[in-house]
């Protein structure tokens, strides 16, 4: 009998966890849906697809709504609104917040204090309430809801970035760059900000889900998407009116759940992967 050689099993890295994979798969699924739904959608999301308020059946897996539109189709189309809004809001908030936070941390003094007081003032309002107030004053619509959410979200990144900059600017390589005659702009963008992105990236990933949730909340109360847009929050609101036709709210509700969970898992996984302290 030949002796069997035991090969050492390659151990998966610690950060490659099931939640991270699950989160990534869910988000990948929704990205693929968003990109391709126009090609294979079973019905038109805005047109009559059958009898109104029909419960789930083979023809309509998630039933029909009060206007006879297919709930599954509308749910799948909903991601075309939720993901771009979340992406737009998070990127805008990251850019504005990081820039202002970076300047506050790097420049300090009166400008830094002024920026941080603005951050404090904005953060002192309950975020949902502030977003509602801004969206209500701008009028309904997803763009206005997006602007309202950016106004609520940027201070988080400003505070985060300022903390990072304050820490990084004391490092030796920065002192060396100063000694080497680096200008202030080069110092900030090349030697400091480039080392501050990890926590911002992790936070942004986790915030995607929260932004999707807030956008849906604004639409739910009539401050986000306008009808007949198949936006998840407004679809859940339709379902709340037709309380006993549970399927109307189930589809969009479940979609919100999966996206929020997906981004949370992904964010957690990214933190484990990128944060050296967890290795």
């Amino acid at each position, binding site marked *: 009998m030949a002796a069997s050689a035991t090969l050492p099993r390659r151990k998966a890295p610690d950060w490659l966890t099931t939640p991270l994979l699950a989160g990534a798969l869910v988000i990948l699924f929704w990205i693929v849906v968003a990109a391709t739904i126009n090609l294979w959608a079973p019905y038109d999301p*805005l047109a009559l697809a059958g009898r*109104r308020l029909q419960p789930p059946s083979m023809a309509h897996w998630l039933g029909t709504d009060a*206007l*006879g539109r297919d709930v599954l189709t509308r749910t799948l189309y909903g991601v075309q609104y939720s993901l771009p809004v979340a992406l737009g809001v998070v990127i805008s908030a990251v850019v504005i917040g990081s820039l202002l936070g970076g300047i506050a941390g790097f420049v300090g003094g009166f400008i830094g204090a002024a920026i941080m007081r603005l951050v404090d003032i904005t953060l002192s309002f309950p975020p949902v309430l502030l977003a509602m107030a801004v969206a209500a004053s701008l009028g309904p619509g997803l763009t206005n809801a997006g602007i309202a959410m950016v106004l609520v979200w940027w201070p988080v990144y400003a505070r985060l970035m300022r903390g990072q900059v304050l820490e990084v600017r004391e490092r030796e390589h920065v002192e060396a760059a100063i000694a080497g005659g680096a200008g202030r702009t080069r110092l900030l963008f090349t030697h400091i900000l480039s080392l501050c992105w990890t926590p911002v990236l992790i936070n942004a990933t986790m915030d995607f889900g929260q932004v999707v949730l807030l956008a849906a909340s604004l639409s739910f109360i*009539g401050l986000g998407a306008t009808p007949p847009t198949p936006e998840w929050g407004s679809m859940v609101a*339709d379902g709340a*009116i037709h*309380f006993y036709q549970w399927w109307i709210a189930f589809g969009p509700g479940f979609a919100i759940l999966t996206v929020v969970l997906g981004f949370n898992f992904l964010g957690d996984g990214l933190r484990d992967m990128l944060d050296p302290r967890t290795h």
Partner: protein
Amino acid sequence: MKHLDLRGSSSRSRITRSDGTAALLALAAGLILAAPSPSHAQGANKPLVIARNMDLNSLDPHRSFCDTCQIYNSTVYETLLTLDTSNKLVPLLAANWEASADQTKFTFKLDPKAKFSDGSPVEAKDVKWSWERLKNLKGSAAFLAENITQIDTPNPQTVVVTVAAPNSEFLNIVSAPYMAVVNSKVASANGAMAAADAATKDNAEGWFLQNSPGSGPYVLASYSPNNELRLKRNAQYWRSAPAIEDVVFRQVKDAVAQAQMLESGTADIAMQIDPDTAKTIRSKDVTVQTVPSYNFIYLALSPGAKGNKVKMTKEVREAISLGLNRKEILEFTLGKEGQLISAPIPLGFPGGSGFPEEPYDPAKAKDLLAKSNASNIELDAAFPNLNAYGVDLSLLMQKVQQELSKINVKVNLQPMTFSNWREQVSGNGIPLTAVFYAPDYYGSAQYVEYFGMMPGSPWAKRAGAANDPSVINPREQELLKKALASGGEEAATIYHEIGLEMIKDKVILPLVSPNLILAYNKGVKGVRYSACCNLPVAEISR
């Protein structure tokens, strides 16, 4: 026009860990209290609970203007006349009355037995004071008394009213709950005023939140805004006392919660349940009765709105009307629980029946649009985002959007709060909108005055008569004058003729008249819908 603001904020409660003990104790206490006790086992003195989304704007009868106000005013106050079940005028505070041949002078003899809840008699001076106060407070219902030029009180039992122009509907106006007679001595002592400057000097609104100086079968016991309105039997009531001692209106925002309360027995009556929710009521202890209502939902086009991208000529308006499949709209919004309505005068009101059905002809609509160089038009459609009498306006407008897209009219929906909508419709105007109307009294003149394309009428202004005088239809004003100077069948015929003119205007496009769903527990008797008073509470018994 009354309105409901059904998009109030909802409140949530939750039990935290620290509240756990208290919650258990409360639960135990609740169970003990809920156990049947011989003293009130049969519920003879059990309060009548009405679950309702209360749209109360005031408890002052001369400032109030809403559906719930009609119920409250007609329960704690009284008018000189009221309506019976067939909408015929019957005496209330007035024992008898007469109108002059030219319909400008009306004489009322008060019932000598009538007395207020403090025991003092109802006198002519109270009627004069109350109606002058309604007029001079200049509230939303002041238009009802606007036409009054003089009120004489030759003796404590006689009231002689002179109106500026013949008004054959004045007696119907008198039966409107806003024409409530208030104990003038008591109210005046608490800051209420009837003088010409009452609008700025009267400061009794707060006092009316705790007091009801009326002669109605009930008196106000307590009011807690957004919670409950509690009434108790008027111990001094001068007619037959109502059967139920206490009445509680409980604030319940949505139809589903109202239905659940009925099924669980925590409410006795709900009348704001929509047809889809009504279908889900399974309890055999709940009676669901459907009656035709006088409310209706309509679309309105504004030729003079600043937001119009093309000239909204009569042909374009006609085309839009032809592009609406009203039968499908009815099916989608109300199913079998409503009727189509062609003219803005409801069925059951003088001259309100027999209007031809509005045609649906998308091909002709497209032709008309092409002839008007408006083959592909876009309309901004702002509307109040609420549920009116079981019709979700957002849903309705999405259906209208679908319908009009078939004739290449693109509708941009803009849902908004009722207050924003009101500001916009009275400001720059809205090219296409949807809203609702509920009568303020039993009579057709109000519809002509509100919807008619007559100089100064609310909808002529909203339709942009100032920018586009072509919307004015002079015939409507002429006919209204004739109708108000006549009466009975003759007036009804003229109102019908005005209705046909309003259809031709194609500014107001009435769509559906929702049935009213009266849902109540089997043990409750005497629940009905009234044209003047909404829900006559005093007629209800167990």
